[in-house]
């Protein structure tokens, strides 16, 4: 049995399967399909889906709902991500589990509402003041969007932080054939909630304390200002230092656990194609075509874009002399690859005209 679905529908099914109970969003192409479907799905399951007055209100309501015990998600595109930037920082600072879907379209500004782009890759990482790490996952197709949405909810709970599902217009709105088995239900893990004591803990720095929920147990505090473990505002330097190092360490010290990559190795390969998101489709096909022409080429598809899976990327570089990075931007993730490749040649295949990269363009770079 098969299904004919698009990525937005797969994301909604993933969210429902993962136990999402609260959604707030604002209409924006090409993410509106998620908003409309959540309006049908959540209230019928006892949850809440609401259209906010703007993207700021939408993510704000999600943060409030998360602190009152909901599993929350919002969905938008580049222009909306800009408006959500400050609240992404609040979710990082307040250690709020939250899933933010960014269905990328061509930018900058209003850009191309119905045209594809991958221009928010660095923005997903650096889109809020302070520079603290976020987690970002990039699905390559609709089935992947279902799995990674579920994973995004798991990671948001596990690390008490916002997780960005970084998809794009083509994955989100292209109808594709999916094996019905790809939508297998998952067991929703009950959250471990604390009902007493301080809502935060900074030592050991990489540990994540259990979430508190308003109305369950003792009263507790939440703040976006620098704070001690009881969320009282403080400028005490050792406390502020411990807070900020904790916010970084709890994500960065767990890169291995967060790494999601697909390495398709070939003995003797001197060329490696590194891809992510929608571009992985053409990249895989180009690698296959190159092999049929007798070329030894390896492929690395990265699903966990942030934090950068550095160890997995380094492991894929053995024997490699040239790295090809196709992207629908002017080389945003290539710079992360270049940090790790030493003297190897790194070649970008880039499009910013609103169309997808074809496998011929990648094949040409493979040579």
């Amino acid at each position, binding site marked *: 049995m098969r299904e004919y679905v698009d990525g937005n529908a797969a994301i909604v099914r993933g969210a429902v399967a993962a136990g999402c109970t609260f959604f707030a969003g604002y209409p924006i192409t090409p993410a509106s399909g998620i908003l409309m479907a959540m309006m049908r799905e959540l209230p019928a399951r006892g949850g809440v889906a609401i259209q906010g007055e703007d993207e700021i209100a939408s993510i704000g309501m999600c943060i409030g709902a998360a602190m009152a015990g909901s599993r929350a998600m919002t969905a938008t595109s580049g222009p909306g991500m800009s408006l959500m930037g400050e609240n992404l920082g609040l979710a990082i600072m307040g250690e709020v589990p939250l899933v933010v879907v960014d269905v990328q379209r061509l930018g900058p500004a209003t850009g191309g509402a119905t045209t594809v782009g991958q221009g928010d890759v660095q923005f997903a990482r650096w889109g809020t003041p302070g520079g603290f790490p976020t987690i970002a996952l990039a699905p390559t197709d609709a089935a992947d969007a279902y799995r990674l949405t579920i994973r995004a909810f798991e990671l948001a709970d596990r690390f008490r932080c916002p997780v960005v599902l970084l998809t794009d217009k083509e994955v989100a709105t292209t109808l594709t054939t999916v094996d019905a088995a790809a939508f297998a239900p998952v067991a929703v893990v009950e959250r471990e909630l604390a009902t007493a004591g301080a809502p935060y803990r900074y030592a050991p720095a990489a540990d994540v304390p259990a979430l508190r929920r308003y109305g369950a147990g003792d009263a507790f505090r939440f703040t976006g200002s620098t704070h001690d473990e009881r969320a*009282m*505002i403080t400028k005490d330097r050792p406390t502020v230092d411990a807070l900020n190092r904790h916010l970084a360490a709890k994500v960065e010290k767990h890169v291995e656990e967060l790494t999601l990559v697909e390495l398709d190795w070939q003995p003797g390969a001197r060329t490696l194609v590194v891809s992510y998101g929608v571009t992985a489709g053409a990249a895989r096909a180009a690698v296959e075509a190159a092999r049929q022409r007798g070329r030894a080429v390896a492929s690395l598809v990265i699903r966990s874009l942030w934090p950068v899976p550095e160890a997995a990327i380094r492991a894929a570089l053995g024997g490699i002399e040239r790295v090809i990075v196709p992207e629908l931007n002017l080389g945003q993730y290539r710079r992360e690859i270049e940090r790790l490749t030493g003297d190897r040649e790194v070649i970008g295949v880039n499009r910013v005209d609103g169309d997808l990269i074809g496998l011929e363009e990648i094949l040409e770079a493979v040579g």
Partner: protein
Amino acid sequence: MTVVSGDLATDLTTLETFRNALPYPFCPGCGHGGVLDRLDEALRRLGRDPARTVLVSDIGCSGLSDQYFVTNAFHGLHGRSITYASGIKLADPALEVIVLMGDGSAGIGGAHLLAAARRNVGITVVVMNNLNFGMTGGQHSTTTPSGAVTSTTPGGNLEQPLDLCATVAVNGAAYAHRATQWDDDLADRLVEAIETPGFALLDVWELCTAYFVKGNRLSRRGMEALMEERGFRRGTVVHRAVDEYAAAYRHAHQADAPAAPPAPIAIDHAATLDRPYGVVVAGSAGGRVRSAARLIAEAAVRCGLWATQRDDYPVTVQAGHSVTELLLSPAPQPLAALETPELMVVLSEDGRRRVSSTLRRLRADATVVTVAGVAAPETPARVVVADPGRLARGDATLAVLVTAITALGVLPAQAIRAAASAGAHASANLAAIEAATSLPLG
């Protein structure tokens, strides 16, 4: 039961104060501390459970307020307190949610104030309105009276002040009341606001002794005279029964049942296709290009093929081109641009112009099907003109597409009929398919 906040424990059964032991940080003469004492009194009189009460503070001097209470607290971003409070209340309507903000927050969060009034989520908003930005240096705010001197209006404010109470009242709020820091009944009005189902706003005028008082030589008497003179009279502006949003939302959806997941498509037909086959349907918006292509794709899935459908259209929904790329294949194919389709169905000039470069790069053995009224495509491929007769435009799209797909042996007509029978608008689509089989191709 013991309630813990900060390092302070209080026995709830004899809760004499919702305040903790920390002294307020406010300037001498500032109204904030007095207003917070009245809030404490109101919460005591209501006998609220501090563990089920959330004080949501905004930014500025008033934003410090939550730290002096034993309740839950949420201190977020400037101007966004109403959004967090709304999320908390919508997620758990049993919680008592009270927002403490200044006039600066009411201004920057104006869109949220309007939306909250219109929605009537059951939160209480207390605006500690001291007519300027006290924390950042006495700049003018949205409530600064006209003519008032502030650090950013040295020659006197040229803007009209925002009437908070009138604004929320005219936009649906259940409760709005204007008060001053000196009002004897402030605790009564706080009790009233908190108990009102729906959105409640208390606009409490205060003196900012650090800035506004100095710049405008304002006293209690002066402020009271100013309020009278400018038409900002004290008192209840609106108090009415409304449906609280969180309760109304749940009531509206109580009978909803989860929709069944889409029925999987059974593979009950067969096709002879042994390689990827690309189809482009190029027409105009409103011509049912996408739904016709979807029907063909679902028929292909019924035949055990893998179908992918990429739609291209301008942001306007019912004007301009509508182009769909369909890739049918015996094996899954990656999502990539369709460079050289085997078949192109060109139904309008909008569509032809959008796909003109694809038409030019077609292989000679590809087929282009057009209809009357479309200029001859510039292409090396074989071009045939189909005549959909007097079919309506949407039906003609499906009929011409089915004609081409079946005549070229891509899919059997039975599979397309089966897909149409299982989908929406079955009878109209089946009729169009029947019309197709009798169309002359070429």
